[in-house]
């Protein structure tokens, strides 16, 4: 977007000579038998233009409608259902209690309520689990950055022919099922006396999410112009300085997108804490899953999902604000 600004400027303001040539050309292509100031040919041209624009609009609609419908039906509506569910009572055998006291179901918990929210803010255990989850996600993200950066750099600086193979190796673990890979970690961590500890949870999280950090970082680093590093070296920067002054700041967008791809899924991940962690290592993901599958308390689970979404959004907003104010300072 940034890089295109000069092009669009040039398009917006054609030189007088160019526009003169263009109008002369147009006059030759559409010779008007009537005097130039006659409105008839102009109107005809306008109609053609309008038809073309209508055609373009139609194409735009045809292309954007399917994904729009899909996202509305399978993302927005379910999300609204979750929001609605969080204000209701749990059903006796799972699901939700009826909204209206119907015949044959004279339960007392009927209608809308703020019960789940009161529950959430009244019990510090939830805050504790949320904070722990964010800490685990943050730590996982940090370790992923530290581990992925050298790998991504190595791939990006390798000969072009070898890069595809290396990327393939990075995504190869996806070829086998997540649970199988996590069970493999049970076998590895068991003898090391790390199984069912918070360490095991973080190790598992890092292992599963590492490719999501490597790929965006590699995509970013691969685009760097090698001439920039040569210029920096030429102007007196040694290897370390070149990395911190050129490579690293230019890779920040890659780090950000990689972090988003790691941080957010880790918050919702329940399989790894369940299989590798101890009883005290429950994360938000486990908590939510428990409400739906074990406790049959859909409203509570829904409320927790919403809280998680809000927390992530708040964090993302904070990050965006911080990035913007930093750029403003510079």
């Amino acid at each position: 977007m940034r890089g295109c600004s000069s092009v669009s400027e040039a398009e917006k303001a054609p030189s007088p000579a160019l526009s003169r040539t263009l109008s002369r050309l147009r006059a030759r292509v559409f010779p008007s038998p009537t005097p130039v100031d006659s409105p008839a040919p102009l109107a005809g041209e306008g109609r053609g233009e309008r038809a073309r624009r209508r055609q373009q609009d139609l194409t735009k609609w045809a292309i954007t409608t399917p994904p729009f419908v899909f996202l509305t039906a399978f993302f927005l509506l379910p999300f609204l259902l979750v929001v609605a569910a969080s204000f209701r009572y749990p059903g006796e055998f799972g699901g939700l209690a009826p909204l209206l006291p119907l015949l044959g179901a004279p339960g007392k918990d009927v209608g809308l309520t703020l019960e789940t929210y009161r529950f959430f803010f009244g019990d510090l255990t939830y805050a504790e689990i949320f904070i722990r989850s964010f800490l685990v996600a943050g730590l996982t993200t940090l370790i992923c950055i530290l581990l992925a950066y050298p790998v991504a750099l190595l791939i990006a600086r390798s000969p072009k022919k070898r890069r595809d193979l290396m990327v393939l190796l990075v995504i190869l673990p996806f070829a086998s099922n997540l649970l199988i890979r996590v069970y493999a970690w049970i076998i590895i961590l068991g003898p090391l006396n790390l199984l069912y500890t918070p360490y095991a949870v973080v190790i598992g999280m890092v292992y599963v999410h590492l490719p999501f950090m490597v790929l965006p970082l590699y995509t970013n680093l691969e685009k760097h112009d090698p001439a920039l590093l040569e210029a920096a070296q030429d102007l007196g920067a040694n290897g370390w300085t070149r990395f911190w002054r050129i490579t690293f700041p230019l890779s920040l967008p890659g780090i950000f997108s990689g972090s988003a791809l790691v941080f957010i899924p880790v918050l919702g991940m329940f399989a790894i804490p369940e299989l590798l962690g101890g009883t005290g290592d429950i994360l938000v993901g486990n908590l939510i899953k428990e409400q739906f599958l074990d406790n049959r308390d859909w409203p509570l689970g829904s409320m927790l999902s919403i809280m998680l979404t809000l927390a992530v959004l708040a964090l993302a907003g904070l990050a965006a604000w911080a990035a913007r104010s930093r750029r403003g300072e510079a």
Partner: protein
Amino acid sequence: MALLEIQGVTRRYGDLVAVDDVSFSVESGEFFTLLGPSGCGKTTLLRMIAGFEDPDRGRILLDGKDLAGTPPEKRPVHTVFQSYALFPHMTVRDNIAFPLRMAKKSEEEVRQRLQETLDQVHLADKSRHYPHELSGGQKQRVALARGLVNKPRLLLLDEPLGALDAKLRERMQLELIGLQRDVGVTFVFVTHAQQEALALSDRIGVMNEGRVEQLDEPSRIYGFPRNRFVADFIGDINLLESEVLEANPAHLKLQVAGLGEIAAPPTAGIKPGDKGALALRPEQLRIAPHGSPQELKNHFPGTVLDFLYLGDVTVYKVALPNGVVMDALLANSAPGRAKFFETGDAVEMAWRHDAGLFLRE
């Protein structure tokens, strides 16, 4: 002592000899240009001076000190890259201050040098902009400023004007000359554009296939090319294949197949029987309507095959009786006169007996 000395430098890539036993020296304060077609080794030579590549043989001396083993960041040599290589995440100011910060100059000195340099390249009002917000010419000036700000012993310029359009190129050429004069830094400039080289340089080294073919002042390179390659590469030239009939200190008499005898200026070391070509610049040829009286000895009838109207001048392609086509250039200085001849016109082509240069095979 020369500032930069290149002594027998050779660089190979596998079987390809990119730079082949090149030797020359550059004086302090000089605007020196390496000119040649792409692949002639000029950029490789530049990269060796900058330190990005090492010579396989030979030495590169700066102020009499061998640069071998000194990495690029330790050489008092800066480069202006063809792509400019401006740091996209830094403002104009930070880009230009980069070499000063690398040299650990005091904040006070950084500020002062920055202001000076920004003024020199007329970018004071753009100092807070990012490179993507600048035009091509402005980017070019930032790259120049960044290369010059820390006063290197030597500034290397790798086709820095290549990406600019013709008009801007001309303006930047003038700015470049002015800037070099102001700061007094020695420039080593690499280009494949012969006009640029002629316009800018104190001296030019013409390179071909890894070797320096001729090293001289621009007017000598243009007027007295040493061989066919230089004659052909610099400007436009007509080559008349000929054999020497008579050689004396005053003039040469040449035999041109299908055309007869012509007179040419003498060159040292030419003997009768030598084969070669008489090189004539288009502006040295005169054409007149057929049958007009001729006072010059070298004159031949010809036919206009074609002409190129270039505004200020018109280039006429004239076929001589032996089938050779010569380019002759006529200035359109008379008001309203765009051309003097039409395609198919019979003309008389002539040139002075002391025009041209005989180049031996």
